[in-house]
């Protein structure tokens, strides 16, 4: 009689990993600390203690933000939920001109998540943090029963320091300003859509998930007085442009032909009836700059890896205050409104 060989089950997250006891300690020491290793986290106190003097040397205001990531699937071409959780929060700090410094990491894990997947995600966070020059200095882990969450949700809060006199705001767009984007729009939205495999469509498109603070430094060097800057995530560039138009009480005229768009994204939009202006991005920003500096800003962006396909896509105008008007390639004009409802749930 030969022994029946049962396959060893892959190690998974259990409720004990969130219980505060030995299993949780093991998870932190084996998976989380090595991924994020830095002296502030290694003390394993309940909070990170940050030197005020060191912060004050870098600027005169703190920038503080938080975001929660629930994307499905958790791994997709061009990134995963871990990379997204770092880049998204870094970008929320960077777009006000702040230098991103510290992140927190709150993990909500579903019972049964494979430890291998968790390790991959956490390592991806660590790698993205190192690349962005930020440290994950405090964190929390909770485990919920199977079905109470979908594999893993991540919250990151971030702290950055804002140098004196930097004042970019949605209210500052002025007639005559140029509107700039740093590259093709909609890649993240379509990458996620295709990765879900619900549509029997395939195509090579990668999420643009990337940190933007380096690019923003280069832009500010080319033009110290950027009027508005925002990253275009959920709701796409259409949403950011509408926010600028409303807050600044100006009109914005876009030229459809000038908006960079990858062929696969364009093709998928044609097939599915989606508008790329509303698709989510995770590494795209919209800048409004004085026209006199526009060419210099675009040149500086194109010299940076995150802005190689930067382009001027429109102008701010006094007419149509509060509205975004698109000059279509076909020759007509139409309004680009705020998104109604949701184009795609759980995109980030």
């Amino acid at each position: 009689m030969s022994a029946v060989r049962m396959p060893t089950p892959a190690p998974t997250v259990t409720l004990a990993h969130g219980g505060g006891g030995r299993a949780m300690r093991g998870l932190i020491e084996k998976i989380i600390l090595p991924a994020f290793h830095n002296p502030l986290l290694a003390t394993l106190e309940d909070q990170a203690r940050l030197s005020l003097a060191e912060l004050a040397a870098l600027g005169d205001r703190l920038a503080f933000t938080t975001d929660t990531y629930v994307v499905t699937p958790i791994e997709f071409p061009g990134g995963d939920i871990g990379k997204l959780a770092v880049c998204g929060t870094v970008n929320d700090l960077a777009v006000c001109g702040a230098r991103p410094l510290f992140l927190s990491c709150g993990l909500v894990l579903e019972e049964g998540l494979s430890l291998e997947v968790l390790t991959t995600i956490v390592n991806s966070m660590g790698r993205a943090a190192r690349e962005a020059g930020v440290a994950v200095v405090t964190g929390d882990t909770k485990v919920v029963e199977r079905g109470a969450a979908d594999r893993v949700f991540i919250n990151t809060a971030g702290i950055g320091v804002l140098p004196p006199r930097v004042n970019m705001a949605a209210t500052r767009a002025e007639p005559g300003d140029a509107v700039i984007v740093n590259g093709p729009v909609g890649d993240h939205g379509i990458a996620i859509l295709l990765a879900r495999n619900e549509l029997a469509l395939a195509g090579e498109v990668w999420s643009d998930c990337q940190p933007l603070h380096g690019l923003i430094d280069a832009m500010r060097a080319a033009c110290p007085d950027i009027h508005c800057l925002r990253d275009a995530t959920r709701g796409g560039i259409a949403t950011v442009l509408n926010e600028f138009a409303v807050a600044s009480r100006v009109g914005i005229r876009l030229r459809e032909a000038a908006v960079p768009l990858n062929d696969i994204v364009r093709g998928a939009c044609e097939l599915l009836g989606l508008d790329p202006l509303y698709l989510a991005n995770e590494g795209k920003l919209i800048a409004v700059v004085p026209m006199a500096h526009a060419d210099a800003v675009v040149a500086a962006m194109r010299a940076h890896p995150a802005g190689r396909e930067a382009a001027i896509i429109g102008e701010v105008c006094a007419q149509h205050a509060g509205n975004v008007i698109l000059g279509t390639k076909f020759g007509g004009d139409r309004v680009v409104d705020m998104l109604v409802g949701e184009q795609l749930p759980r995109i980030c």
Partner: protein
Amino acid sequence: MRFTDEFRDPDKARTLVGEIARLAAPLAAMRERPLQIMEVCGGHTHTIFRYGLKSMLPQDSIEFVHGPGCPVCVLPMGRVDDCVALARDPHIILTTFGDAMRVPGSQGSLLQAKADGADVRMVYSPLDALQLARAHPEREVVFFALGFETTMPSTALTVLQARREGIRNFSLFCNHITIVPTLKALLDSADLRLDGFIGPGHVSMVIGNRPYDFIAKAYGKPLVVAGFEPLDLLQSLWMVIKQLAEGRCEIENQYTRIVPEDGNQQALAALTEVFELREFFEWRGLGSIDHSGVRMRREFAAFDAERKFAVPNLAVADPKSCQCGEVLKGLIKPQQCKVFGTACTPDKPLGALMVSSEGACAAYYQYGRIDVKDRQPRAQGVS
């Protein structure tokens, strides 16, 4: 991109617009009003707004009247309520196309029913719904079928497939409608003053061009069946206006690359096998129209949710303030409606035409407000 860019060439568009303007000006001058051309199909309405065609055409001589050809828009609230009632049955998995999920009934939409715990699933084809029925033999899968002849063949073929396989837990809640009786009802209304029609391309792909003959013969209006790219629409508009200029009135086909003169015989055979005309059907905004809806034939009772389940068959009157009917007849423009943009918005639609992105009011709201010269700038949380 090949096969799309050819139909969006701005130079060709300019040439066509020039020709249209030249032909239309004297006709409009004679009538002392712009020519009123109805694009019947919601897909055409969408193209007109998405590409900004209205802004390219001379406003004083051409006016588009946006027709009733958006099946999601014209679905009466009572039918949505029936559907929500079906969805609340814990044995039922209710399946439908994405844009039908947002349609509001008097008790909320399917999307809200889903949030409240109903098992409502979005599918891309009725075959996906049939696949769900195969995968869940212990549940009842109901497909919320709606649309004109464009979507009827795929529904009919799915039912035939289910019968072939002996699948017993699949049924349709049939809300398919047919456009021709509704066009006739519009033409019969006393206050209508349309000059011509741009005919629906995808419906005609199934039914062909002949069902429209009465529009030219009995009502003396030209109709051109059109494709959905912006150049298709401009060319079709030019063909309609050319007929008017030459004093002709005929049924013409611009969409010859897709629409055969006699339609698609196989598709028509499947429709006839599965469906029969209802005596009348309620249209949101237009009221009851004779022979404008279809139901499943008695032989397919086992696949008919209306026979299989206790569908409450609710009748809900359209909101009183809603002027969808007048918009559909071209009597008023969407923004002239009393509730446009105030009580009725795409987020909270009151009337049929605000519901789907193919509805005229939703299109005006989303793309067209640039035309409203006296519009106040929006103030959203910014003082």
